[in-house]
């Protein structure tokens, strides 16, 4: 059993209420922080902890906090990114739904560290029922003097609100989120200036993911040094992984970073192996935007090292033979999966979610969707496969925000690792008429991966 911090008490009946949350030690970090620590001490602890942004980018959280413009006379804001929309990711939803007070406590401690007097949680519109859970918990916190004026009898005051979105993946990008919070279309902003200098209402702002903020009270409680002892190297602490696809036990799991991918997939404590005893075919380890891995690169890297659930090990081999930890959206595919069809659904997703500001993304995502639709439905040509690679290359790096990259990578990597399957679709249009064409007869590659490519 790995160490649990965020989900340690998730199965305690009534943990969603303030009473039970407090009984289990909740709000002790808020007490400690507000009564015995200076704001900068908290930032220092977060830096020492090595905590990295849990939304997907993995940027060191303490460093992000230290960028906030303290000379500005404008109010500072902390905004929590609860716009969880990356396909395969449902960990923040689970945490907010089960232990809403852990996020609220994190918001109190983090807002205090940053000097914010008003903070917002921006939650995706579809999570309306989670919004209600959070609002109920916030109400309880206000009534108990944990929010509002003079929190816990100290000089510190904080107002916390939950803002509902309207259904747009792009609002998970921090500057698009701020635009949306200002009542506008979710068009990402040009950077610089970064939000730490000019964010919400052109004021210094920090935007952090739900899981990042919820980790802060634990760091305050056990100290940054202790937190840094969990995990391996620069991948410190615990991480929530939401597992889906063809596994026996889909769900949200908290792991110590450094657990082996093999154990995560096959152990009964986590995914419980592949459903129906079928064969593992592919894995998307960190949400739909990260490169897909074929079976032979999942549990071992190209150099034969065991693959671990860390930022470093998952990206071992770069984009040639590696991927990314990303958001922790862990999508497992068995041998009944058609990679072309799955990639097409992702292309459709990115096309739908492109905000339309940058031509390469607005047009390119649409072209990719159409070309993939063509191939999947038996009307593709060999040239189409190279066309996809070409479009992906032309989107990547040529857009204001990373949605362009996120749309390009899944397609480029699917072709890199499963090109033969795309070619099969072109050559055998009659064999792919049934949408579940590989269900009864899985696709068998003729290429033997005896000498995997090494970056």
């Amino acid at each position, binding site marked *: 059993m790995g160490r649990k911090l965020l989900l340690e008490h998730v199965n305690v009946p009534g943990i969603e209420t303030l009473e039970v949350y407090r009984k289990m030690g909740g709000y002790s970090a808020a007490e400690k922080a507000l009564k015995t620590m200076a704001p900068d001490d908290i930032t220092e602890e977060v830096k020492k902890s090595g905590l990295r942004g849990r939304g997907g980018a993995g940027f060191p959280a303490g460093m992000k906090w230290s960028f906030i413009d303290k000379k500005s006379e404008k109010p500072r804001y902390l905004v929590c990114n609860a716009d969880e929309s990356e396909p395969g990711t449902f960990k923040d939803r689970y945490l907010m739904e089960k232990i809403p007070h852990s996020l609220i406590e994190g918001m109190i401690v983090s807002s205090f560290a940053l000097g914010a007097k008003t903070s917002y949680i921006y939650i995706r*519109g579809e999570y309306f029922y989670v919004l*209600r859970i959070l609002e109920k918990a916030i109400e309880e916190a206000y009534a108990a003097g944990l929010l509002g004026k003079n929190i816990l009898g100290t000089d510190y005051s904080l107002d916390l609100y939950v803002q509902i979105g*309207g*259904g747009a993946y792009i609002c998970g990008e921090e500057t698009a989120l701020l635009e949306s919070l200002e*009542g506008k279309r979710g068009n990402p902003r040009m950077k610089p200036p970064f939000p730490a200098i000019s964010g919400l209402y052109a004021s210094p702002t920090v935007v952090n993911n739900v899981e990042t903020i919820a980790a802060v009270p634990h760091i305050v409680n056990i100290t940054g040094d202790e937190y840094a002892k969990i995990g391996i190297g620069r991948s410190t602490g615990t991480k929530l992984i939401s597992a889906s696809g063809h596994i026996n036990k889909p769900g949200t799991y908290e792991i110590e970073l450094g657990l082996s991918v093999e154990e995560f997939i096959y152990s009964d404590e986590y995914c419980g192996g592949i459903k129906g005893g079928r064969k593992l075919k592919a894995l998307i380890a960190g949400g739909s935007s990260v490169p897909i891995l074929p079976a032979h690169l999942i549990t071992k890297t190209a150099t034969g090292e065991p693959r671990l659930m860390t930022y470093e090990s998952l990206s071992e081999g770069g984009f040639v033979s590696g991927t990314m930890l990303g958001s922790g959206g862990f999508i497992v595919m068995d041998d009944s999966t058609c990679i072309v069809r799955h990639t097409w659904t*992702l292309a*459709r997703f990115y096309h739908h979610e492109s905000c339309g500001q940058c031509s390469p993304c607005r047009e390119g995502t649409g072209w990719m969707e159409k070309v993939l639709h063509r191939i999947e439905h038996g009307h593709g040509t060999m040239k189409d496969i190279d066309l996809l690679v070409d479009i992906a290359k032309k989107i990547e790096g040529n857009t204001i925000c990373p949605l362009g990259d996120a749309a390009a990578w899944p397609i480029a990597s699917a072709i890199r690792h499963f090109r033969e399957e795309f070619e099969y679709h072109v050559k055998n249009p009659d064999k792919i008429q049934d949408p579940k064409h590989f269900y009864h007869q899985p696709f068998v590659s003729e290429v033997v991966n005896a000498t995997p490519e090494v970056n």
Partner: protein
Amino acid sequence: MSKEIVFSSETLEVVNKLIRRYPEGRHKSALLPVLHVAQAEFDGWLSPEVMDYVASILNIKPIEVYEVASFYSMFNLQPVGKCLLEVCQTGPCMLNGADDLVAHFEKKLNIKVGETTEDGMFTLKTVECLGSCGTAPMLQCGADYHENLDAEKADALLEKLRTENKRSRYC
């Protein structure tokens, strides 16, 4: 006759409370939450008249409302059936049978995706990832998530919604 486009006094109080969440002069921030309230209040969609009314409440230009309402997928700019069935079709749901689920609804309701049943009861819509990948396939109807669906559960849900005969709403 369509009803007059004015929030009830209780709804107006909710809206004013929303506006007070933001600093002075930043009331436009309330636009998304207020649009949700308006959509729920006025039959599940935002007509131009409703959007103009929201603009007047927030003291912003109508175009500022149109451009936002047309950007976000949860705002309906056309009338929808009493119950809007939003079936997730992205990768992880597809892996677990979203295609079959959509086909089942199309057959059962005798409509295609994007259409409304003749009696105005159901509109079938496919949507992109709703963050319910571990409980796929699934659909959203109003604020409710209906997860781990199969044909049998889907039929039971339709039956239940028909019996309740209530308009689905997010808030």
